[in-house]
């Protein structure tokens, strides 16, 4: 009755669908789906207003780093069933989601910890970059963990 674990990764210029990310991890053997959604925050930086973010990725390498990330999660939380990350590329305006991650697990504790760890690792390891774009037409590249 046990299912083959699924690791699903998608980079896309389209709006993210939370439902699609959740459906990708759904499993009759799981009682819990833990989800994190990162959105572009309205922000003021030195008097300039952030109007959106521009994302780019080293796509093939992002896929292989995602596979390592999944291996790491499964080593730490062996009960994790399915893992899905969708990340947007290109222009993401304020209020829209840039990343969604979902993990299914039989019980909720493991999945919630695994999502927290997974998002930290995604920010530390996946070759993806964003530039903050301001209402003044200026822009600046961001750095995680600043």
């Amino acid at each position, binding site marked *: 009755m046990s299912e083959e674990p699924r690791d699903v990764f998608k980079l896309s210029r389209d709006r993210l669908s939370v439902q699609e990310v959740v459906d990708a991890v759904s499993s009759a053997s799981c009682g819990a789906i833990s989800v994190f959604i*990162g959105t572009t925050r309205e922000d003021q930086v030195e008097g300039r207003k952030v109007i959106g973010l521009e*994302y*780019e*990725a*080293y796509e*093939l*390498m992002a896929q*292989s780093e995602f596979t390592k990330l999944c291996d790491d999660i499964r080593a730490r939380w062996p009960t994790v069933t399915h893992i899905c990350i969708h*990340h947007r590329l290109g222009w993401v305006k304020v209020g829209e989601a*840039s*990343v969604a991650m979902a993990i299914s697990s039989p019980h909720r504790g493991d999945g919630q910890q695994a999502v927290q760890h997974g*998002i930290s690792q*995604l*920010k*530390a*390891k*996946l*070759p*993806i*970059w*964003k*530039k903050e774009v301001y209402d003044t037409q200026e822009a600046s*590249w*961001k*750095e*995680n963990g600043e």
Partner: protein
Amino acid sequence: MTAQVLVLYFAQSVELTGLKEEELPDVPTPISSRDLWTLLLRRHPRLAALQHHVILAVRQQYVAVGDQVVTLADGDEVAVVPPLSGG
């Protein structure tokens, strides 16, 4: 020995070099990652803005700029990896 590698630039390094990628026909191999970075820096002096903040990726594996020696073959991908900011 030398190898012909494909160098990929991302994020700030695209703006500093004006390039998304370029072929480098005569990269010495084996080479330390520090010497590889120095070679890129000589071609594109503006990359100095990333000094101490950059790492490389060789065949899609991260390599810190330092003593580690990499062996390159024709067609290998080398990427310039500015600080990550996904999520």
